[in-house]
């Protein structure tokens, strides 16, 4: 039985039908060890690829597994839960098939078992089922899994805590009602306590769970904040693990984006500085939630934008803009800078001082946000205008060929209106040609 690993089955692509029909009667064997091993083999097969998982489903094995789950010992339960999880992870249809054969109730019963290994397998299976879409999550919640998951979080086993936290995160990410159900079961207090745990993977899951809860509405975000996560969450921004940092900045972003009061709270707790440092120490996609958080905070009001500016956010954002190779991160950074700069001339000057405008211009793709920034900047500040011209920005703007009537053309027109006409003409392409033409057509006055 142990020899039937996935490697061998790779070489027998047509063998799955035969294997299923062989394994199925073994599940009903008298000797418990054989049952467990058969279940384990089925699990490994289903884990490997989704055709095999479909074959497991089609071979009517699931009802048998579910039926015998209730009575057997803990090794069988672990193996059966492993099979269910392996089948559920591939696609929503397979997960739906598992729900249809009544596995949810049995899995929930397994969650109440004494053995933490059984609890872990059951919780993992439920997590994979709930991950796919909102209906499946709702089915998991209706089976009464959430209070048991909250109990699982309090267990001393780290692996069990991780799985339970990732389950709660998967359940609450789909809709506000599900998140509310998770909150009503009292999950937030326990999740907030576990932020201090030294284990990195646990912190990842806990932070992701809290951010999925907080993202749906202002009330949920306020409840998360009331669990006194600040300033503890800021220490997570200094963690060595990259994903812990990313999830922590995601959590702070989801809280900051709802209302100005919540952003104010974060700013008062020194969160902006911590996020800026975190952006400085990361690379690539990890930075993205932090950048967006700065954008959201600055967008709410000009006081908050000024707070972001004095926390030295703008140099950091411009460094990001210049360094990052990826387009969407650059777009996000440009958007954040636009939010900071759009309030008053003071803000705009702070942004312009970092010489970021030519860089912005050179990003053709993110043109809308940068044009927005420029349209607001240039009418106000003569210094900014001068900077714009000397850094070759005006030249580039003339070179941008846009269709008349488009938004880009309007922006270009408003920028051109800030400057006297000769200068606009001087920088427009082909000026030297027109000059030469005039020279040609000019007849010198001969006395």
């Amino acid at each position: 039985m142990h020899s039937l690993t996935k490697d061998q089955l790779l070489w027998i692509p047509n063998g799955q039908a035969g294997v299923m029909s062989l394994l199925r009667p073994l599940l009903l064997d008298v000797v418990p060890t054989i049952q467990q091993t058969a279940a384990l083999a089925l699990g490994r097969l289903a884990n490997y690829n989704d055709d095999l998982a479909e074959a497991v489903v089609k071979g009517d094995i699931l009802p048998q597994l579910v039926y015998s789950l209730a009575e057997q010992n803990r090794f069988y339960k672990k193996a059966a839960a492993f099979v269910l999880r392996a089948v559920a992870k591939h696609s929503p249809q397979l997960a739906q098939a598992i729900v249809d054969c009544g596995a949810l109730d049995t899995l929930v019963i397994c969650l109440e078992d004494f053995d933490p290994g059984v609890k872990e397998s059951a919780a993992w299976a439920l997590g994979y089922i709930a991950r796919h879409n909102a209906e499946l999550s709702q089915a998991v919640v209706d089976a009464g899994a959430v209070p048991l998951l909250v109990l699982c979080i309090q267990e001393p086993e780290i692996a069990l805590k991780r799985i339970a936290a990732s389950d709660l995160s998967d359940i609450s990410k789909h809709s506000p009602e599900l998140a509310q159900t998770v909150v009503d079961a009292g999950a937030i207090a326990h999740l907030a306590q576990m932020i201090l745990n030294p284990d990195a993977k646990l912190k990842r899951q806990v932070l992701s769970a809290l951010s999925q809860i907080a993202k749906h509405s202002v009330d949920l975000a306020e409840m998360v904040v009331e669990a006194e996560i600040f300033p503890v969450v800021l220490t997570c921004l200094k963690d060595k693990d990259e994903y812990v940092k990313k999830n922590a900045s995601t959590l702070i972003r989801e809280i900051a984006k709802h209302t100005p009061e919540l952003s104010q709270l974060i700013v008062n707790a020194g969160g902006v500085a911590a996020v800026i440092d975190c952006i400085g120490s990361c690379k690539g996609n990890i930075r993205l939630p932090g950048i967006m958080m700065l954008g959201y905070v600055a967008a709410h009001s000009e006081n908050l934008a000024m707070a972001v500016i004095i926390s030295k956010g703008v140099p950091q954002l411009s460094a990001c803009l210049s360094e990052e190779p990826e387009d969407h991160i650059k777009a996000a950074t440009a958007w954040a800078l636009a939010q900071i700069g759009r309030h008053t001339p003071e803000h705009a000057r702070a942004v312009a001082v970092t010489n970021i405008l030519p860089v912005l211009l050179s990003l053709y793709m993110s043109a809308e946000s940068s044009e927005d920034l420029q349209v607001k900047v240039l009418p106000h500040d003569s210094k900014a205008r001068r900077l714009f011209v000397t850094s070759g920005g005006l030249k580039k703007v003339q070179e941008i060929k846009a269709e008349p009537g488009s938004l880009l053309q309007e922006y270009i027109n408003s920028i051109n209106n800030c400057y006297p006409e000769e200068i606009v003409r001087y920088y427009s392409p082909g000026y030297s040609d027109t000059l030469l033409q005039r020279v040609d057509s000019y007849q010198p006055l001969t006395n």
Partner: protein
Amino acid sequence: MASLARLQARSALLGHQYYFRNSVVDAFRKKENEAAGKIQSWFRGCQVRTYIRYLHRVVTVIQKWWRSYLGKKCYQNKIKLAYHDMKMNIYNAMAVRIQKRWRGYKVRKYGFNYYYFKEYLRAISETNDAVREALDDFADMREREEKKADLEREEKKRDYAARKMHYLLSTKQIPGVYNSPFRKEPDPWELRLQKAKPLTHQRPKARKKRPHSLSSWLACTSTRSFPRSHTLPPIDRKQCQGPFRDVSDVLKQRYKPLEPTMRVAEPINSLKEARIEFRRLELSRNVQENMFLPFSSYHKKERYIPSIHLSSKYGPDAYGYHRFRDESPNKWIGGKDFQTILPSFDLFSKYGKSYSKAGQIL
């Protein structure tokens, strides 16, 4: 008769004359009447015209006065209105001034207070610096802890290696591997080997890792579990002989909460505490603490006559006046006085609470 004839001759003439004179006079009369009428009417006309002229003059005066009165009234109204307008304008202007100042003040103090904002931003930057410092410290501390943990692990590994290799220690006769005679000094491993205690034979078995699920099952079962030992009894032992009590009874008995007897539950100085409590209640109840004194000054005049026992100069008699314990604290061995303790009897303290059913009426 002659006269009569004369008269009669004359009478025809008279008649004619009479008629003629009357008719002439009549003719004149009409003329004169008309003339008189004319004159009268003219005169009356003049009179009336004068009167009318007079009336006109008078009416003009009246009208003049009346119109001047109306005009003045109108003018006064206009003046009043203009004055009122002027006043209102002044008030408005003053109100605008006040509003200007007030709105400027309000906006600068409550709407956008520049100095508050500056302070706020300064406070924010200070908080930011503090947070950054704290986070840096935290990161440093964590790094240091990790390095320390790494070093300790290395140390432990090296110790264990030394203990395993203790036989490579050099003897008097044969220099060991790490103590080559060509070296100036022995290798540091040599010193380590000298300090290491050799491993005993039991060690490998004791260090064998228990299967993860089993120990964690033992670790995570709820509080209602039996005390753990590292080895479980063998499974194939004979079953213990019954009959056994119901598990719920056993557990109830095991985990019964503490119910101390009355003797233990009362504190040892309950009498003293009761006295203090009583005094405290009195204190809270009473309005003032002085005892009520008698009104009359009858007793003030009484001289106090001490008794014979108290008025002797040899001191009062020892027996009956002292307590049976000596009251000079400097002679006490311990620092504290005896305490009054009321013993209680525990006849009924175990009633209905013991495990066995002995004595219960079934």
